[in-house]
């Protein structure tokens, strides 16, 4: 099998061995639950329950009419306590429906199902995806339904399932692929029904050999589903790098994968599609990796959405040593958090806790122009130039060196031997340019009036 690859990127210290060997465990709902209302990058859903209402697992509790809104379902049986702001994994405070769980949890309220997948047509499948509130299940928080609708007039040739999981320490997709392999293939087949001209490709990082073998065995009789092994470098899971690895095509920052005939979905989204169509279950759970050298029982858990991080960590046995840093998400793109008072959303993927041994901050020194950043940049930029541009304030050079193309993956920060925060400098320069151009546009408008 050929190895999907892209230029640039770094091989990171893996850390996956800590949490990859245990089976997924379901967490019993306990503690305060909060259903964040805007769990996607569109208009916020609106609550349709009131304080004091009883809710059941799988009951619709927030929705909106527009296409760009994902409905929210309760993941527990309980009582609505209040509607208040809670902290999301990105450390924003958003409005949420706060529910306290009942002591006994009943069965899930399901949406309607049919006898077999052949009874579903394309519109019904897309409608169900919208109804179940399926999103990308990662930080981008796009609605799968609106992405698929946007592909209506495009010639879609490939549906790519992103099984790269290039961030270190995170192994939830790995366990999903290993334990729910049939469901993932079924989910892909459901989606392929909506795009009859397309083929399906499941791209899997080459460190997950057992997943590759297992899935290859399942799809060996399928004519239009293939498995592709991907060179596991970070940022393999990023959209543009994944498209290059699978199709050899390069898209720029203004294009999306559908411009080259591709749709990309994450493992968790495909599994959610299977659940929604075949079992009638809306999005109420997701897998989360608890890992790091400070966690007592590192493994992957199936967490009901809305559970507080503190309760998850307590259920898992807490910390075995004092953590120096706790990260929500992966170590390359995640957010460092101060306390665990954070609510699980559809995009939570990991809670990592590290002792000071693994997280050592070194002093920042000057750029020696060693060029290591140039070798790892997946967009072919010269990150060290932006250090000079930032420090000497040469805004014009920013455009000359194409700074706006930066995808902020952080590979340059990772390899810099002088510990320079290059990614942050480029992000700040990008902000300045945007603010300046807004200012210029405003001035132009004033001038024209």
């Amino acid at each position, binding site marked *: 099998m050929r190895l999907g690859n892209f*230029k640039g990127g*770094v091989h*990171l*210290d893996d850390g996956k061995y800590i949490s990859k060997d245990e089976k997924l465990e379901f967490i019993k709902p306990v503690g305060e639950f909060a259903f964040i209302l805007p769990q996607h990058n569109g208009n916020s859903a609106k609550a349709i329950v009131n304080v004091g209402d009883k809710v059941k697992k799988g009951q619709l509790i927030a929705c909106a009419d527009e296409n760009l809104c994902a409905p929210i379902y309760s993941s527990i049986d309980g009582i609505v306590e209040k509607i208040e702001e809670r902290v999301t994994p990105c450390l924003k405070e958003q409005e949420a429906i706060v529910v306290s769980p009942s002591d006994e949890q009943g069965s899930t309220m399901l949406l309607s199902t049919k006898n077999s997948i052949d009874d579903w047509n394309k519109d019904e499948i897309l409608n169900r995806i919208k109804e179940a509130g399926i999103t990308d299940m990662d930080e981008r928080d796009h609605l799968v339904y609106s992405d698929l609708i946007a592909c209506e007039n495009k010639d879609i040739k490939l549906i790519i399932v992103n099984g790269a999981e290039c961030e*270190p320490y995170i192994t939830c997709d790995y366990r999903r692929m290993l334990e729910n392999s049939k469901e993932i293939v079924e989910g892909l087949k459901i989606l392929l029904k909506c795009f009859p001209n397309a083929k399906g490709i499941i791209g899997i990082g080459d460190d997950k050999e057992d997943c590759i073998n297992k899935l290859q065995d399942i799809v060996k009789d399928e004519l239009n589903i293939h498995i592709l092994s991907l060179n596991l470098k970070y940022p393999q899971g990023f959209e*543009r790098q994944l498209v*290059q690895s699978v199709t050899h095509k*390069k*898209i*720029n*920052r*203004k*294009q999306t994968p559908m411009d080259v005939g591709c749709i990309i979905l994450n493992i968790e989204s495909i599994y959610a599609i299977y659940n929604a169509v075949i079992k009638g279950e809306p999005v109420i759970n997701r897998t989360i990796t608890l890992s790091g050298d400070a966690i007592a029982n590192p493994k992957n858990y199936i967490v009901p959405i809305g559970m507080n991080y503190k309760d998850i960590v307590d259920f898992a046995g807490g910390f075995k040593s*004092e953590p*120096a*840093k706790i*990260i929500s*998400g992966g*170590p*390359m*793109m*995640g*957010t*460092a*958090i*101060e*306390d665990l008072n954070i609510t699980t959303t559809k995009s939570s993927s990991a809670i990592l806790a*590290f002792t*000071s041994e693994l*997280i050592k*901050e*070194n002093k920042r*020194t*000057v*750029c*020696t*122009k*060693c*060029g290591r950043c*140039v070798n790892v940049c*997946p*967009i*072919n*930029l*010269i990150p*060290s*130039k932006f250090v000079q541009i930032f420090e000497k304030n040469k805004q014009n050079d920013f455009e*000359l*060196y*194409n700074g706006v*193309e930066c995808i902020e993956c*952080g590979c340059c*920060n*990772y*390899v*810099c*031997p*002088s*510990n320079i925060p290059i990614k*942050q400098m480029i992000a700040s320069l990008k902000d300045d340019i945007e603010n300046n151009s807004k200012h210029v546009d405003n001035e132009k408008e004033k001038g024209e009036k």
Partner: protein
Amino acid sequence: MIEAFNTSSPHIKEKIQTKHIMLLVMIALLPNTVFGIWHFGLRSLLLIVLSIGTSVGTEYLYEKALKKEITISDGSAALTGLLLALNLPVGVKWWIPVIGGFVAIFVVKQLFGGLGQNILNPALAAKCMLLLFFTGQMTNYSSTSFSTTPLSQLKDGNPVEMWAMLVGKTPGTIGVTSTIFVLLGASILLAFGIIEWKIPGFCLLSFVIFISIFGSHSFDMSYITAHLCAGGLMLGVWFMATDYATSPITKRGKILYGILLGIIVGIFRIFIPTYEDITYAIIIGNVFVPLIEKVTIPKPFGYKKVENN
């Protein structure tokens, strides 16, 4: 107590630091330094110590006087001192490496902005200055038991002893005589990813092509090998042309720079009566580096010229 809370991603880092890189380069230079001391005698050790001491001392005093952060522990000043000493004939007076070290650090490096900001290679630029002001001492190799270097013999058209040149038992500056030990050091640098093969590779390639076309012996293998081992070419190409601050950072720029260096050394070897070919070639090349970087800015991933709306 969560100490490291308010930092932004990425939260993990590769372990190698600038000072490890400088240390690795000095370790890679150790084989031919030790050989140089063994071959030329203990005076060479004195010169090396004086050069490193002055370089580090100059940097320390400069930074202390201007109330800047003291950076001598990153090893770059010591490395400059070592490289300067390796480029001196063993017979120079003791104050030559002292003046050289001072000029290299104070003028060529610090006055131009410090580590990473200098345009000229400090060790070689200091050597150029010494060559201008103290020509007699800097070109006098007669304190050893031989009087002419292999490079001068080659240029005069006289035969050379290949094996002696490879091992290094010939006259020359302290660190350049032994091709084998220089190549050993270079392989350490390549193995650890400290340098890339592009600049040395393309420099040597274009040099070989140049002297084959314009030299007196066409594609004669022993002539070419003799030229490759003669003078400071190997040390210069592997250790000084690849200096981070003074070589292009772009991938295509490295190729262009290597080819340019190879041609310039070729011109000096064939047409110009001097024995400091690689020194001058690298300094001339250094001057062109900002221009080379400007014309080799890479195209970003998937970039298409954006039409104006």
